[in-house]
């Protein structure tokens, strides 16, 4: 459906260095930041995982899903349902179960959705997402419009020994950082595996892939399910951090935010998704925090600024920050594989 654009798959040296610096900064940050900002950055890292999962689908495979947040929210709901009333849940089995639940949901919905092409795909992912949204919104049994509370954070206890406590904001920060790095490493590996190469081929020219003998529907379904599972990981962490899950987390607004994050940073290499998630969350934070100007509370109208921001970015910088960097890099050099 999309054009035959390629992505900045091999990161130029400058970007690699910038990422390394960023990693060091993230590792050291808690020592310099206040609790408020530690929580904020934890949230950004959770969104980064969410954005990376979408990047697999969108940036690599070329499938634009407006319903990706469903799998994000479902894992959070799984955590909420699994957590008993009076005590904490074990992290070690609840995390895999929640991730699996999201992956399975993605497999089921994906089965209907991957046989559609182009604009249909966008519309049906949106429709199914809203279906799940209303399923939870309308049913008190599932929490209804009020959502569900998670009273106890998952416990890391193993046979009496508690290696770490997720209630501690610092611990949760590093746990999330570790998860984000693992997901990044996994996805980068995947990108260069035969499976990842096939997905990229599907994005560039699905017709030729089929003519060469690839069962593209199967590949797309696998990517869809995997992306859903990873979104579930992010959702589980969100539930762990905030202790609260509501249907809004599954709606198409949330999905569109994720799309924005991926596009903001630059698609197809997962580093862009991380950068985009941080940038998006930061911009959102800035807009919501705008001061009073005379009689008008600018922060209250954050949706207006956000909307204008999105419109401007899409109009003038559609391939995001890393894309701009890549273009600058290319001026003069003619490296074979570093291209946009």
């Amino acid at each position, binding site marked *: 459906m999309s054009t035959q654009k390629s992505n900045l798959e091999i990161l130029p040296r400058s970007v690699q260095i910038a990422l390394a610096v960023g990693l060091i900064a993230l590792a050291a940050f808690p020592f310099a930041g206040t609790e408020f900002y530690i929580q904020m950055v934890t949230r950004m890292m959770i969104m980064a995982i969410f954005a990376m999962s979408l990047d697999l689908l969108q940036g690599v495979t070329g499938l634009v899903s407006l319903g990706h947040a469903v799998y994000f929210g479902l894992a959070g709901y799984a955590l909420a349902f699994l957590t008993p009333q009076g005590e904490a849940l074990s992290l070690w089995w609840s995390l895999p179960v929640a991730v699996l639940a999201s992956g399975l949901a993605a497999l089921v919905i994906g089965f209907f959705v991957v046989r559609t092409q182009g604009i249909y795909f966008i519309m049906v992912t949106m429709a199914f997402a809203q279906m799940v949204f209303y399923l939870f919104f309308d049913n008190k049994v599932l929490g209804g419009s009020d959502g569900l509370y998670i009273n106890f954070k998952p416990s890391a206890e193993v046979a009496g020994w508690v290696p770490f406590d997720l209630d501690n904001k610092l611990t949760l920060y590093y746990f999330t950082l570790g998860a984000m790095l693992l997901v990044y490493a996994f996805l980068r*590996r*995947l990108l260069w595996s*035969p*499976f*990842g190469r096939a997905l*990229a081929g599907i994005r560039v*020219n699905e017709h030729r892939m089929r*003519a060469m*003998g690839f069962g593209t529907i199967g590949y797309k379904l696998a990517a869809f399910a995997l992306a859903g599972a990873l979104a579930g990981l992010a959702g589980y962490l969100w539930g762990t951090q905030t202790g609260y899950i509501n249907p809004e987390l599954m709606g198409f607004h949330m999905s569109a935010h994720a799309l924005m994050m991926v596009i903001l940073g630059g698609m197809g290499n997962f580093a862009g998704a991380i950068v985009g998630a941080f940038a998006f969350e930061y911009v959102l934070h800035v807009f919501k925090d705008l001061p009073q100007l005379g009689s008008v509370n600018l922060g209250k109208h954050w949706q207006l600024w956000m909307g204008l921001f999105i419109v401007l970015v899409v109009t003038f910088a559609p391939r995001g920050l890393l894309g701009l960097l890549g273009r600058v890099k290319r001026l003069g050099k003619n490296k074979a594989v570093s291209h946009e």
Partner: protein
Amino acid sequence: MSEALLSAKNLTKRFGGLAAVNEVSVAIWRNQIHAVIGPNGAGKSTLTHLLSGDLPATSGTVTLGRRDVTGWSPEKISRQGLGRSYQKTNIFLPFSVWENVRLASQSRAPHASRWLSRAITFEAINARAERALELCGLQDRKNSIAGTISHGEQRQLEIAMTLATGPKVLLLDEPLAGMGALEAERMVALLQSIKKDHGILLIEHDMDAVFALADQLTVMVNGQVIASGTPAEIRADAGVQAAYLGEEQT
């Protein structure tokens, strides 16, 4: 090898009331180049789409080896041993030349869905891709981006990708399209060299190339076969001369 590698019997494709392909039968044998010629709009490309599974036939059958592949999807037919190249260059423009053929070769790997190993370490896949590149003379352009190489080289890449899937039968739709004299010569030599061990259905307008390459000729006009035989027979056929060849022989 007493049976055809690929055979179509009474293939028909109707679009509404119009029969783009009308009761066409054609067979391709090993070590043979079977050319299909005819004026524009004769239905040659449509015939190719029917054979490769890109279009479903209205009636008739397609047999690949011993299997009836009528109505099969393109990927299934490809895996049965059919490869095709396109009239309009249909490659992966943003990828390198090497990645184009490597991906084509990967389509045949049994463990193609292994997720965590780096793709470039699969020896068998790489070997087949290398061979395809060598056959088509593109080894020197390995690292160039497919979108930046010349038109003639892109047409060569088309063929290389088709070869890299290791097919028994090749459907080549105007491989010489848009080529200059030198490039066309090279392509003809390439096709001569791959004739061995393959069966080739060739659609072409370049009559010099056709008569240099073809062992069998089928002439199509308005969706129907009006003549089929050896090049000498076709040349002598009055009906063909009237309908088509007359204008071409300059």
